[in-house]
């Protein structure tokens, strides 16, 4: 099967089979194939991501979207080819992804990959895809350096980690007009990175910035702090007089801190990043009302597209609402299909070239790639907690 390049080869091969093998079974299959008028060639779009292990859910979110996009494309019957999905399970693990990439590259029908899902896995797999000119469009790999590694076949439909902090700062200072911001980080690599990127941009934008490190608690994650410290830290935030507070950290500790802030009488605006963008923030905040009106940014979109949401639910049996990176995976697949449609002769390299030029209106955003494969334009969404739910407000 691997040798069949396209329809021509397939026909040649089956004719050869017909000549060599005379039995009736061979005759029957060959003659039935011949009566069909010009069957469409089949191409494969692969998905590489976690399809087993601890990150399975994230992989399922994406793979159902890929399947949905492919099913829809096939169902229109307008394409000059048929599409098929092949799943490559790397468990999100950089040590497994090279093997999966080699297996994908060896599949001659495979034209492009949606994924890899995880940054580490992407970094490990990309050299193999690059060597075979296989375009990879990741819905979720956000490590900054992936775009600067010189892989011209690398694309992603999600903003990278370096974009969020500055984009949040612009939103708070420029869009919302806050002139004084209290910036808290949880002491984690993620939280302090995000908070310091925010603080730098907010200062550049002309705001007065006060920073504080309030370590994440042992009860939430692997932090070193204690929830009892949040009482004093919240008092200080109130006394700083800042009208907005940015928290770099994760939802569990933010939940504790929100309770302390509400106890201390804080009334300003509160914003946090994707580490806190979870409905678990609301269930973990005491009292739950303290989470109201908190702004949460994320590079991930929540789909408001009814057709997608319905199709996704039917296929996967779970709701698209809360299925992180599902809409991105849908867009990634569709942008590959759109690129294939533009080509007279579909080749792997042709798809890479077409993706560099394409402008496609996805369900999450307008998809247009920069030269390095990053998405062009603003791609950070801002969400808000409203009466116990995380609601998407739109792009920042």
């Amino acid at each position, binding site marked *: 099967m691997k040798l069949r390049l396209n329809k021509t080869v397939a026909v040649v091969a089956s004719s050869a089979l017909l000549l060599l093998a005379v039995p009736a079974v061979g005759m029957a299959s060959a003659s039935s194939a011949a009566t069909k008028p010009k069957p469409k060639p089949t191409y494969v779009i692969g998905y590489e991501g976690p399809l087993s292990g601890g990150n399975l859910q994230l992989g399922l979110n994406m793979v159902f979207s890929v399947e949905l996009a492919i099913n829809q494309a096939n169902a229109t019957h307008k394409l000059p080819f048929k599409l098929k999905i092949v799943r490559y399970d790397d468990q999100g693990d950089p040590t497994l992804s090279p093997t999966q990439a080699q297996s994908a590259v060896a599949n001659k029908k495979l034209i492009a990959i949606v994924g890899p899902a995880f940054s580490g896995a992407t970094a490990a797999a990309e050299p193999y895809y690059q060597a075979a000119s296989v375009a990879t469009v990741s819905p979720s790999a956000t490590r900054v350096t992936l775009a600067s590694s010189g892989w011209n076949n690398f694309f992603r439909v999600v903003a990278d980690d370096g974009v969020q902090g500055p984009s949040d700062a612009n939103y708070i200072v420029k869009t919302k007009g806050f002139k004084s911001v209290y910036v808290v980080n949880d002491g984690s690599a993620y939280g302090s990175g995000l908070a310091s990127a925010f603080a730098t941009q907010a200062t550049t934008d002309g705001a007065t910035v006060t920073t*504080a*490190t*309030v370590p994440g608690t*042992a009860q939430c994650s692997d932090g070193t*702090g204690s929830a009892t*410290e949040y009482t*004093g*830290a919240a008092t*200080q935030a109130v006394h700083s007089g800042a009208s907005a507070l940015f928290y770099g950290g994760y939802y569990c500790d933010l939940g504790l801190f929100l309770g302390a802030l509400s106890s201390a009488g804080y009334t300003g605006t509160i914003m946090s990043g994707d580490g806190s963008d979870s409905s678990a923030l609301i269930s973990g905040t005491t*009292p739950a009302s303290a989470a109201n009106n908190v702004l949460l940014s994320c590079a991930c979109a929540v789909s408001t597209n009814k057709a997608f949401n319905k199709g996704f639910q039917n296929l996967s049996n779970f709701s698209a609402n809360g299925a992180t990176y599902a809409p991105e995976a849908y867009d990634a697949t569709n942008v590959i299909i759109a690129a294939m449609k533009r080509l007279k002769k579909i080749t792997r390299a042709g798809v890479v070239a077409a993706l560099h030029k394409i402008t496609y209106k996805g369900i999450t955003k307008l998809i247009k790639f920069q030269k390095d494969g990053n998405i062009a334009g603003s791609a950070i969404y801002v969400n808000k907690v409203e009466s116990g739910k995380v609601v998407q407000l739109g792009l920042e």
Partner: protein
Amino acid sequence: MGAFGHYLAAHFDTLKSEFWALFVGGVANGLLYGMIAVGYTLVYGVLRLINFAHSEIFMSGGFAGYFVMRYFVGAGAPPAGMSSVGLIILGVLVGGLVGAIVATVLERVAYRPLRKRNAPKLAYLISAIGASYFLFNLAGKEFGHLAYATPQPYINHPVFHIFGAPVQMYFVIIFLVGLVMFTALDRVISKTRLGRGIRAVAQDAETASLMGVNIDRTIAITFIVGGTLGGAAGFLFGLSYGVVYTMGFVPALKAFTAAVLGGIGNLRGAMIGGLILGIFESLSLVFVQAAYIDVVAFGILVTVLLVRPTGILGERLGRAA
């Protein structure tokens, strides 16, 4: 003056404006530490053993209180008035009861068999750590690894102000419960026959048993008393910070510090150590970031121990209190 002088002057200005707000929060934390520390100190007094599974007694009380609040308050609006008072008393009682039950089981399963075989002290320590791991992993398995917010049995609002600093309802609850429990405990230990038994065992277990004190019973009661306060503290902590299977670790470590600070084995020392630790931690926020708060806490501990190796009050349960 110089740069350091300016640094201090600026921070003392902040201290002046924030002092009372931080002080109130510090006293509340200190009372919680003290309530947990009592469990360490009592057990140390009678067994010469650090009960490292005490953090899980605290956690059990937290979960017990959480389930009671979830049952009675649920997702509805927080009640007010007398029903709030009733619910909080119920929470403290159930938290304390479950804490006492877990402490009793712990004593029976993890410590008594070792005591009967005259095991070396290190065996107790390993047994304690093992029990702690078992209990919090069991809680993680049974209740899930997520953090849960406790439904609020009251509306948290400033009740009154001390020098301009608001005192929240939550703090008032901790003050009242803490005061009642400390007073009652102090009375029991110093005035009653039961307390005399505990003190006698602490002073000299062998002689106490010759004098007719039932050692097994006294030790069991000591665990019950410590477990009650620890479980109640777990409920009070969970009221504000929610519950999760690993919630016991850090507060219990702080409380252990407080017990050593006040003089391990000394009941009043545990309460005072807790208060001092809570207040100093909170006030130190003016000078250092929250990230360094533990440095301050342990700095205080080391300094005190350098001057008074037996802690602030320094005497044993048997002689003092």
